[in-house]
């Protein structure tokens, strides 16, 4: 029995934390709000130099060929800092899809650049009816001679303004599940990006219109019309990672609450001495550790391809989401008036929690998925 990260993993966490703290932690997210990511590539490069972006990429493509558990400390630290950018989308959704289903050519052209921190991917999935089911995909990609032509509109596309590539979820046939994943290079011109405003201004979302955009058929990731099935695999990895990021954010929230309750005095004593405050923070801590245990196990199940991995991962996502939202909300209350201001970081965490709540899948859908996986 050994349910803990190993020494190397904890050591690596230390490097990442030190680096992000040296960059001002949430200052990175605050800068992102102002310049929409102009200053961000330097941070992404910094993390890549530490090795973060190459962890789960095969050695032959310049990676370290490590597993989901080795990403855990990095993801927790990214969560603590509320890091913007596309690390999550690139390294935990697209990389596993490329590794598992990509052609040799695709792997060779994308993975080494990702490993070096030179390119990032975003995911263009949702359309205007905000439906996460196959029926929600209306955007068409049809074959014409030797190309694939893409026409349609995607919404809520994360960080479209800084992504180097898009994985577009497109309809390629008549049947409900005739869906394919197509890799699109951002430098192609037949694409319009219109920024959308969200409550979490440290993440950017955009509406992207593809207007007769032409790509070679070699850009299809995985089997044609088989995109939906492989997407489910990618989402397992993505959700294990997202749970971990949310645990990292919650960890920082609990730390903030404890620190404030220790220094803020009212009625001549620190507010952390009052049980109404103390017990609230303890409940946040209990939620945090429970979420962390579930997330660690989810990543372990993913890495070891266990039979219970679907339930382990969906349960981790459901619980970590709730824990993050609760902790972020309570943190504002504990900070009192100052917690309601833009000046302190409390609001940044709350907004990120709501951003992730239904990110790439709805909570309702994950409840149903967990129940089904449990055989209920």
């Amino acid at each position, binding site marked *: 029995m050994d*349910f*803990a990260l190993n020494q190397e993993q904890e050591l690596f966490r230390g490097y990442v934390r030190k680096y992000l703290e040296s960059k001002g932690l949430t200052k990175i997210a605050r800068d992102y709000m102002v310049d929409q990511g102009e200053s961000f590539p330097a941070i992404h490069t910094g993390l890549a130099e530490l090795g973060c972006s190459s962890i789960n990429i095969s050695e032959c493509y310049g990676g370290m060929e490590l597993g989901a558990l080795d990403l855990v400390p990095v993801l927790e630290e990214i969560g603590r800092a509320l890091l913007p950018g596309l690390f999550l989308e690139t390294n935990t959704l697209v990389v596993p899809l490329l590794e598992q289903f990509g052609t040799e050519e695709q792997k060779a052209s994308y993975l080494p650049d990702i490993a070096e921190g030179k390119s990032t991917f975003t995911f263009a999935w949702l359309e205007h009816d905000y439906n996460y089911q196959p029926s929600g995909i209306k955007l068409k990609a049809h074959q014409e001679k030797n190309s694939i032509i893409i026409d349609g509109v995607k919404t809520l596309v994360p960080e479209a303004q800084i992504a180097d590539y898009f994985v577009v979820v497109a309809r390629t046939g008549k049947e409900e599940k005739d869906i394919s994943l197509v890799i699109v290079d951002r430098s192609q011109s037949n694409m319009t990006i219109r920024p959308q405003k969200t409550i979490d201004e440290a993440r950017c979302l955009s509406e992207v219109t593809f207007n007769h955009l032409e790509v070679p058929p070699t850009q299809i990731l995985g089997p044609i019309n088989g995109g939906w099935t492989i997407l489910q695999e990618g989402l397992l990895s993505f959700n294990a990672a997202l749970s971990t990021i949310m645990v990292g954010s919650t960890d920082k929230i609990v730390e903030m609450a404890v620190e404030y309750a220790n220094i803020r005095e009212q009625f001549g004593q620190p507010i952390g001495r009052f049980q109404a405050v103390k017990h609230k923070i303890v409940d946040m801590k209990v939620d945090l550790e*429970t979420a962390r*245990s579930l997330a660690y196990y989810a990543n372990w199940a993913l890495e070891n391809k266990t039979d219970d991995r679907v339930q382990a991962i969906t349960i981790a996502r459901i619980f970590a989401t709730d824990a993050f939202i609760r902790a972020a909300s309570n943190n504002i209350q504990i900070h009192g008036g100052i917690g309601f201001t833009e000046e302190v970081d409390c609001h940044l965490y709350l907004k990120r929690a709501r951003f992730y709540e239904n990110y790439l899948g709805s909570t309702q859908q994950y409840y149903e998925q967990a129940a089904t996986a449990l055989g209920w």
Partner: protein
Amino acid sequence: MDFSFTKHEEEFRQELRTWLEEHLPKDWVMSNQKYVKDPVFLRNWQKELYEGGWGAIAWPEKYGGRNATLMEEIIYEQEMVRAKAPSPINYVGIHMVGPTLMDIGTEEQKEQYLQKMLTGEEVWCQGYSEPNAGSDLAAIQTSAVKDGDRWIINGQKVWTSYGHVADRCFLLARTNHFEKKHKGITVFLLDMKQAGVETQPIIQMNGEHDFNEVFLKDAIAYDADIVGEVDEGWRVTMALLAHERTGIGAQVFTLEQQFQDLVTLAKEREDHGQPLIKNPFIRKNMIDLYARSRGSLLNYYRNLTKTLKNGYPGPEGSMDKLIVSEITKDLFAQSISMQGHQGILSEDVDGEHSYWSNNYLYSFGQTIGGGTSEIQRNTIGERILGLPKDLRR
């Protein structure tokens, strides 16, 4: 990370499993736990465990144990829960008093008590709580006054589990009034079968009887019955509590099993021709409960890993206790709600007492006994998070 057990541990599990299959009393299994409170039955079970070599596995071999590792103790708890074996009547003796005596008891005390604890011949209780000293243990008032080689003890204890069947009591009494109230406490190994000791049952809200009030009127103990030094009982008490290293484990595994029972209930009971588990509201509640109880098991494993690495348990035990008892309460609350009116029946159709309503009522004790949830939160807040201490005397 590694969730597997060693070959040796798996052999240990198999050995115990086989033994349980052969020795678990047949009428116990058949009777739906009719003997759950029967002291004669439970003493016999203790003896049976002892004779099979399973009476006190963590004890050293020279005292009749097996020198079990912490992992073996965990496996032991898992298997006992899995087999739904009777709960141990001499829990206090085997897990707390015995190991404490081995550490700081006199040779005479070891000689006199250890063997009888194991065989079930002498059942032990603990005399800690008092009407005005529950969570604030150091506030005890029961006094012991020296009279030659004897001590005259007066006062009242409460919440004494198995006090009505116990032969001896690990008793805390005040022997001195120092400024600091945890000073001046002494531990006595008190003979319960004497004129000065009277027990009265406390009937719980589920109709059962585990606890007692114990009245001490000029009860007698001797110098030879003192554990450690006079006035230094607080240290002994803390040492004793540290020996209780697997109590939470048993609760965690029990919770896991109770949750599976709840799933079975939700699959079997129907409402309008449809199993309850297909109802979206119940489904959501069940998933939330599953996430928390699964999380509590994994948390426990994570804390266990820490204990195995450090060689001693940390304050995380408070977190396990808090989480597990709160979830248990919510689990049984859910079991009552989702059954509709049927949920409030205290007897099932076959006349047996209802597992659900009985456990629902019993669960209210779990967030109180063994340190209330509020006390656990204080411990977590102060010892794990470093928040300021409560004001205390």
